[in-house]
């Protein structure tokens, strides 16, 4: 295969990736692809492959199936006790922060962290919670759960969301199911997580 063939076939794949075969390939001006038997055969094969793929149908299970689809789903929702996920109310978010702060303070009180800087940090967390400071809570969440927010959007090249949006997203991802989980998660913070939280707050709030 010549160098030109390699280039054309790479370009061919690129065109297929742009839009599915037919129109793009046929709209292309005549050139090497049409004149070279190898390349035109490769183009035909790829075009045929895409046509075969498009023609392979998923069978329709029939009207009776569709008539029962929603009732079965409703039955499952009821049987499994599935509840509507709700965005946590704002007051509840701050009560969570206050709970986390209290938890930290208890940790300090029992002597888990003796360093004065960490004691100051935990008090600052409590103050932030009391003052309902979303910026601080956002930082705390990021510290506890690094990378939990906006990963998909960032990977897709989307604009970085605002702080408030980030906060809500982080809460959604950290506490996806129901309110009871929040308190469980709060109780499950490891000493390491607590330590990192206190450190982060200490660095930002001195």
């Amino acid at each position: 295969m010549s160098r030109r063939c390699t280039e054309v076939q790479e370009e061919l794949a690129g065109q297929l990736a742009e839009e599915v075969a037919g129109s793009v390939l046929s709209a292309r001006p005549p050139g090497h692809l049409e004149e070279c038997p190898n390349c035109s055969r490769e183009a035909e094969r790829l075009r045929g492959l895409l046509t075969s793929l498009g023609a392979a149908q998923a069978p329709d299970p029939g009207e009776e199936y569709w008539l029962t689809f929603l009732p079965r789903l409703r039955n499952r929702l009821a049987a499994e006790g599935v509840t509507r996920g709700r965005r946590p109310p704002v007051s509840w978010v701050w009560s969570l922060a206050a709970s986390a702060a209290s938890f930290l303070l208890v940790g300090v009180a029992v002597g888990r962290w003796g360093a004065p800087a960490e004691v100051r940090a935990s008090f600052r967390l409590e103050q932030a919670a009391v003052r309902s400071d979303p910026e601080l809570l956002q930082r705390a969440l990021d510290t506890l759960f690094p990378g939990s927010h906006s990963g998909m959007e960032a990977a897709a090249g989307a604009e970085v969301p605002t702080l408030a949006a980030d906060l809500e997203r982080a809460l959604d991802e950290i506490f996806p199911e129901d309110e009871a989980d929040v308190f469980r998660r709060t109780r499950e913070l490891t000493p390491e997580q607590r330590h990192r939280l206190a450190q982060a707050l200490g660095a930002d709030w001195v």
Partner: protein
Amino acid sequence: MMPTPDPNQRDLDLVRRFQAGDESAFDRLVETHRRDLYRLAYRLAGNHADADDMAQETFLRIYRSLGRFRRESSFRTWATRILLNLATDRRRELANQRQSSLEDLGPSEHPCTPGGQGTVLRDEALRKAVGCLPRRQRETLILRVFEEMKFHEIAAVMGCTIGTAKANFFHALRRLRQRVRG
């Protein structure tokens, strides 16, 4: 003459209604998207029983999460992402369950063994060949060819860049070509 309602806007209106407490809006969303999600589930699972279960489970997950859906992407994109995540979970579970039995199979019985030279491309053979692609390539191919999604939509569904989606598509095609080369 009334303008044709934008399907995406119609979906988002239904989501808004659901989030405001209107249960019937969820039923409308199910009725609108059940066929598409079932079809995609079938492409991924390869049989009716699993496709049905995945379609139902996807709507269960949607119901749980819809209250928190931020309406930053289309409902279709979001629902497709949920289905793909579910499919990934299922595939992983299945792989774990089957690992030992697959190890017992001889080479000729392996499900991904290509057919002989000159084999006519039938739906079943093609489905099998698609099923043997690496996961990201397979999902990209299915979304592009069968679901006719644009690359920017695929990127949104799969959480990757448009360039990556195109590259996955390209590699999927090349790999399929190698498998079915006659």
